[in-house]
C-alpha cells in the first residue's frame, strides 16, 4: 500500500520555485529520506504534505487523502516534527507534553512519550532552558503522542549530540518496524543511509536523483586523500584513484577500510602516504559527484 504519493508537485513563493515538479512514493511502513542542502525545498515538501501550504500544481496524497483539503483528517493520523516551531518558553517539558496530550485523541501516556524521546530527566525543566538538541527531542515526543500512522520528520537530529542521534534513530526504526510510515528530511548523508529504505536527493526544488541511483551515489561518496608518493603512478595503487593536482583521491563506500588497504600497501613497500585524510561522505561530496556525472 502507498502511504504517501507525490506527483509533479510545484510550489512558488513569488519568483522563487521552492518545489519544482517533484514526484515520489512512500510505501506503508517504509522510511523514506529526502536528502538535500539548505534551501533545496525539503521543508516546503513536508509542509505541503502536512497541509500547511497548498501546492500550486500537482497531486499530494497522504493515506489517500488530500492534505490541503482534508487537513483535519490527515492531521489526526500524522505526526509532524517541524524544523521550525515554537514552544511556550515558560512551561516545563512535562507541562508541555500534558497540554499537547489534551489536543490529541487517545494520546500516549506522558511518561511513555518522555521515555521514547529520552527526556525523562528533563521533565521538570522549563522549555527555555533546554538545549537545541533537547528541544528537538521534545519536538519528537510531541510528534509521537498520537501514535501516528505517518510521521513527518524535518531534520530530526539537527543539534543533537551523537548519543541522542543514535537513540532517535533507534526510535524511528522501532516505529517503522511497528508499521509507521516515516518521511524524513536530512542533510546528513549517514542519517539517510542508516535509516532510510529508499531516498531521493533534492536540489533547487527538484529531485536530482532517486531510488537506486541516489543510494549508489550516497554509497561511494566516502573519500580518502593523500599525496601520491614520489615515483608511484596511480595505476600502482591497489584501489582506483583520481588525481586532483598532486593529491590522489579514492572514493569508497567505506573510507576507513579503503585507508587501511592503502596504508598496508604503502607499508609493504616502505612508502609514506603524506597528508592522509579520511572522510566519510558529506552531501557536498555527493553533489560534486552529481555534477561530475552530469558533465
Amino acid at each position, binding site marked *: 500500500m502507498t502511504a504517501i504519493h507525490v506527483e509533479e508537485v510545484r510550489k512558488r513563493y513569488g519568483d522563487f520555485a521552492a518545489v519544482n515538479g517533484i514526484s515520489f512514493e512512500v510505501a506503508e511502513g517504509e522510511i523514506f529520506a529526502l536528502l538535500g542542502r539548505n534551501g533545496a525545498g525539503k521543508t516546503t515538501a513536508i509542509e505541503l504534505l502536512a497541509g500547511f501550504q497548498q501546492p500550486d500544481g500537482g497531486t499530494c496524497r497522504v493515506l489517500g487523502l488530500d492534505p490541503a483539503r482534508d487537513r483535519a483528517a490527515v492531521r489526526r493520523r500524522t505526526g509532524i516534527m517541524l524544523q521550525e516551531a515554537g514552544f511556550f518558553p515558560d512551561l516545563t517539558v512535562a507541562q508541555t507534553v500534558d497540554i499537547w496530550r*489534551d489536543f490529541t485523541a487517545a494520546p500516549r501516556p506522558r511518561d511513555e512519550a518522555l521515555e521514547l524521546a529520552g527526556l525523562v530527566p528533563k521533565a521538570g525543566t522549563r522549555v527555555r532552558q533546554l538545549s537545541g538538541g533537547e528541544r528537538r527531542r521534545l519536538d519528537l515526543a510531541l510528534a509521537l503522542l498520537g501514535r501516528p500512522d505517518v510521521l513527518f520528520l524535518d531534520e530530526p537530529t539537527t543539534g543533537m549530540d551523537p548519543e541522542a542521534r543514535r537513540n532517535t534513530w533507534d526510535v524511528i526504526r522501532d516505529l517503522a518496524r511497528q508499521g509507521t510510515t516515516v518521511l524524513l528530511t536530512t542533510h546528513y548523508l549517514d542519517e539517510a543511509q542508516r535509516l532510510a529504505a529508499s531516498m531521493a536527493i533534492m536540489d533547487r526544488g527538484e529531485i536530482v536523483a532517486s531510488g537506486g541511483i541516489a543510494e549508489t551515489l550516497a554509497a561511494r561518496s566516502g573519500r580518502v586523500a593523500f599525496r601520491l608518493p614520489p615515483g608511484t603512478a596511480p595505476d600502482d595503487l591497489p584501489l582506483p584513484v583520481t588525481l586532483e593536482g598532486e593529491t590522489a583521491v579514492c572514493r569508497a563506500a567505506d573510507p576507513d577500510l579503503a585507508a587501511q588497504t592503502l596504508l598496508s600497501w604503502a607499508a609493504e613497500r616502505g612508502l609514506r602516504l603524506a597528508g592522509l585524510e579520511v572522510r566519510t561522505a558529506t552531501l557536498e561530496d555527493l553533489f560534486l559527484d552529481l555534477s561530475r556525472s552530469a558533465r
Partner: protein
Amino acid sequence: MSYTATYRLGTRLFWQDRAMLLASVVTPVGLSVGLPVLARHVTADGVAAATQLSQGMASILLSLTAFMNVAVALTTRRDQLVLKRLRATGLTDGQILSGQIASTATQTVILIVLCAVAVNLLADVPFPANPLVYAGAVVAGSVVLATLGVAYTAVIPRTELAAATTMPVFVVSAIAAGAMGPIREALPAWVGSVLDLLPTSAVVHALRTGEVALPALNLAVWAVVGVVAIRLWFRWEPRRS
C-alpha cells in the same frame, strides 16, 4: 481534546503571563474601580456620576482585557511559531481560535462583573436594573471584542509593536464611552456619531439604557466583520521575509 483544550490553555496562559497581567488586568480593573470611587467622593452628585463613569469603564475592560490581550498574545504566539505548532496537532484552525476567543471573553466577563460588585460596595453604584440585558451585553461584547482582537493581529507586523498598535483602539473606545472625562463633548458632533458605531459604545449604551435592539445589531455586524477578516487575513506564521 478540541475546544475545551484550547480554552483551558488560553486561560492558563492568560493568568501565567505576569507582564501582560499588568496591562490587561491590573490597569483596567484599577481604573474601573478607582475612578468611579473617586467620582463618588469628590463630585456633588456622587452616586450618579460614579454610575455613569462605571458603565463607561466597561469600554476600557473590553478594549484592554479582551481586545488588546488577545491581539498581543496571538501575535506573540504567531511570531514564536507556537501557532504553527498548534496547527500541527489534531486541532482544527477553528478550534484553536474559538477556544482562545472563548477563554479571553470569559476572563473579561469575570473582571467586568467583579468591577460591578466592587463599585457597588465602594461607591454605592446600584446593580443593573435589568441583569439579563446587562449579562447579554457584557458576554456578547466580550466575545465580539476578543474576535476583533484576533482579526486585528493581521495588521500587527511583529510582537514588539503589538501593544502599541492596539493602543489607539483603547484610547478611541474610552473617549467614545466617556471614560476619559468630557473629551468627547469637545469633539464635533459627527465624530461623536462615528464613535457611537464602535462595538464598545454599543455595549456601554446597552448598559446605560437597557436597550437591546440597536446594540445587538451593532455587535452582530462587528462579529461578522471580525469573522470575515479572520478568514481573509489571519496569519498563522510570521511573514517570510
